[in-house]
């Protein structure tokens, strides 16, 4: 069983249930690694003075998983010492303060996992076909990541 710990793994999940930081961390923990770095994306309760009631996410699921797999492959090319990578993204309704996305990366030393986590979330926002709708009291808005090169945002 010990040999399995040596094989780097990617854990990718898109799901509508509440995400768990404990679960995602435990996926990447390894006795060969001294560092686990985490990013948690949570939902804010306001945008430009408007009260956000909740968020809704949808995805082109099969392509989203493929794009996240590409991100993991790129991470391993850039940081070869990275051991395990976990990316969990929630779909459907996400209440305020709950997590929309959790990314965890393990590596023997901390620099690689910290850098890899940042790369994962930045690249996810630029390339993974997932959409967020912010629901306000009287209206809603489809958000656009500034990282998305085909968005027209003037902000």
């Amino acid at each position, binding site marked *: 069983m010990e040999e399995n710990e040596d094989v780097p793994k990617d854990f990718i999940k898109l799901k509508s249930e509440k995400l768990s930081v404990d679960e995602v961390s435990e996926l990447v923990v390894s006795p060969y690694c001294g560092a686990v770095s985490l990013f948690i994306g949570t939902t804010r309760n306001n945008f430009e003075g408007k009260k956000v009631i909740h968020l809704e996410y949808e995805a082109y699921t099969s392509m989203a998983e493929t794009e996240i797999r590409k991100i993991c492959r790129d991470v391993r090319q850039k940081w070869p010492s990275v051991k395990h990578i976990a990316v969990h993204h929630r779909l459907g309704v996400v209440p305020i303060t709950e997590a929309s996305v959790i990314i965890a990366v393990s590596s023997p030393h901390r620099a690689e996992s910290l850098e890899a986590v940042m790369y994962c979330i930045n690249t996810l*926002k630029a390339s993974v*076909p997932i959409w967020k709708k912010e629901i306000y009291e009287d209206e809603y808005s*489809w958000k*656009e990541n500034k990282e998305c090169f*085909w968005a*027209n945002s003037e902000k």
Partner: protein
Amino acid sequence: RLSPRRRRRRGPAAEGSSPRDGGSMRCQVSVLYFARSAELAGLRCETLSVPREITSLQLWEEIVKVHPRLALIRDQVVFAVRQEYVLLGDQLLVLQPGDEVAIIPPISGG
């Protein structure tokens, strides 16, 4: 020039077709709509018959003929054809029956 194949199906005659519409060769593709584009089109997926060889911009125009309200977001979308991003423009697509073509409004994951 394209070789003049047997025109069994309705010829491309009427619609001011450009030389690049693959003659009369068409195929059925699955078109997927997401986010704002699903709201404007009023549905999430359908099968459309489109020319097999077509530029991405021409493919967009075929889809807008079916769902004119999509024209509102023309400047903000890309396609994903067989799960690869394609800008709306001159890129020539060679489509196969059953290919997935997705309308991709600006993304907002994470």
